[in-house]
């Protein structure tokens, strides 16, 4: 079930969604044996920004029907501490590292990307473009022209494979994917969480989450993910990383049928820490049994 992705040879097509599996924390809980037996064929680290961020005030979570709303706020130690403290630990992983970065502006995003661009421990860079533009309130990645400009700036500072993590909170995600491709993206990944709100159960209309709103994930969004992955895969020729609510190998096979090259497990890892390994095994059983149910349409 090995697969090529942006020049990387991966043992199987199952990776993690950024911010859904912290290998450093997991090692504290499960011990160092975990690192040699990681559930993913590549590891995507949690979003880092130029400067440290504390994250949003709690509460940060809300459980929904078949899913959850999170409003974490991208807590991270900033790119400098990431390179000094975390990168040496990620470098010991038995799989390639994909570093996810975000910035509030194109200039800031390019600065973070440049800071990680020449580190050999990093196999690829993923851009989180779900940061709101302060002037418009829209996510940077929600407007194709703005997204294209941002990706061009980052493209100019790195030769590493560049994955653009598209936002689903936009009018036409395929147009955004085309803009990313035109600007030099080597791959796109989707879907990120869907914008969502939860109300306090005992306080008539007040918002529950500390930051007011958050993003919905889990099986509740699986059909949306399938639709958006299919729409994007039809319109771009770069590989697609598909994710959104998948829980089983069959769901992974669906995303591969829709045109994804890799699939990422996110929220299901919260329920089952070994979900990545289980999904990869179930997927291998499915593809070994049928003719080509999971064959990518865009090799």
């Amino acid at each position, binding site marked *: 079930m090995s697969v090529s992705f942006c020049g990387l040879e991966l043992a199987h097509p199952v990776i993690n969604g950024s*911010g*859904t*599996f*912290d290998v*450093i*924390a*997991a*090692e*504290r*809980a*499960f*011990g160092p*044996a*975990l690192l040699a*037996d990681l559930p993913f064929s590549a590891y995507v680290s949690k979003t880092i920004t130029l400067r440290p961020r*504390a*994250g*949003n*005030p*709690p*509460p*940060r*979570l809300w*459980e*929904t*029907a*078949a*899913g*959850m709303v*999170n409003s*974490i706020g991208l*807590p991270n130690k900033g790119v400098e501490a990431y390179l000094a403290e975390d990168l040496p630990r990620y470098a010991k992983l038995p799989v390639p590292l994909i570093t996810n970065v975000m910035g509030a502006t194109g200039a800031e995003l390019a600065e973070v990307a440049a800071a990680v661009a020449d580190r050999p421990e990093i196999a690829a860079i993923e851009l989180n473009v779900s940061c709101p533009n302060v002037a418009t309130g829209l996510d940077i990645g929600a407007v194709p022209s703005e997204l294209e400009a941002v990706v061009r700036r980052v493209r100019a500072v790195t030769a590493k494979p560049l994955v653009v993590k598209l936002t689903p909170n936009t009018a036409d995600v395929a147009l955004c994917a085309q803009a990313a491709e035109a600007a030099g993206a080597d791959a796109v990944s989707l879907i990120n969480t869907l914008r969502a709100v939860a109300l306090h159960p005992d306080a008539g209309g007040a918002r529950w989450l500390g930051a007011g709103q958050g993003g919905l994930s*889990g099986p509740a969004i699986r059909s949306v993910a399938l639709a958006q992955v299919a729409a994007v895969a039809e319109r771009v020729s770069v590989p697609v990383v598909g994710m959104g609510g998948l829980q089983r190998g069959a769901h992974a096979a669906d995303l591969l049928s829709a045109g994804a090259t890799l699939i990422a497990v996110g*929220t299901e*890892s*919260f*329920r*089952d*820490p*070994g979900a990545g*390994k289980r999904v990869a095994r179930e997927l291998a059983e499915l593809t070994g049994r049928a003719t080509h149910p999971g064959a990518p349409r865009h090799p």
Partner: protein
Amino acid sequence: MSAVPVARGEDGRVLAPFGRRRALVVSTRKVGAYVLLELADRDGPQADPGQFHMLATVQGWGAGVDERPFLPRAFSPMGSSGGHLWFMLEDVGPGTHRLSALKKGEALWVTGPLGAGFTLPDASNAGEAPSGGASPAFTGARRAILVAGGIGLPPIVAWSRALAEGAGAEVTLLLGFRDAAHAQVAASFTGAQLATDDGSAGHRGYVTELLEAELARDPHALVYACGPGPMLEAVRALTTALGIPAQLALESGMACGYGACFGCAVPLAAGGYARVCVDGPVMEAAALAAVPAH
């Protein structure tokens, strides 16, 4: 003996086997407002007092009101030995509702033990493994005051047993409940002081009032507490003001229990947030800015 040997991490905590595993319900018993649940967890190691497990039923998780529960729920056991775990639940939401309806022989998904448990502050223990679980050597002459509020009882019970098994521990147990129906579970703790909000058993008022009186008499005591957010916030404020060392076993909504989701943030006195699941759930009161209500 537990079927699985205990392995400890660099910081001394008992490590969890990676992933979720199946455990079976051995017995359930209703005591007043609570349900006591005994699990056969033959693939799990013995937990330290204050550590916790993520629980979900294999069948019918998601079959409640609003198609919930979806995420596993965190519970700190009141006992962990010989491959068995003992939990205490109260049916207050979709997760605890489903768990309260468990029958003997039903299967659960279990991940754990997770997080950091209670420790002794004695400097002679610095750098060594947390002394919970087996028999801590309670070298200090200081009395330990253990404070539990309602559903916060289990880790306090586990820690009081560990201290009692250790040498020289003088333990005072302060238990607070909403009312007599909730306090029924405390009947076996004969030496404990009891408070209820409505006065239907023991002292009428909060358990923190009992703590305040004890600390006025003995300002050299050590405090260990678990209970609802507002109770722990009161313990934090009181002990911090008096400069008394206190460890709080925190509760928080969390999606994963192993540091992945960053949902269980608790504000630190030094600024920023810690994760209750991996930095806690037991944390030094003085390190916290406040204990969130939820």
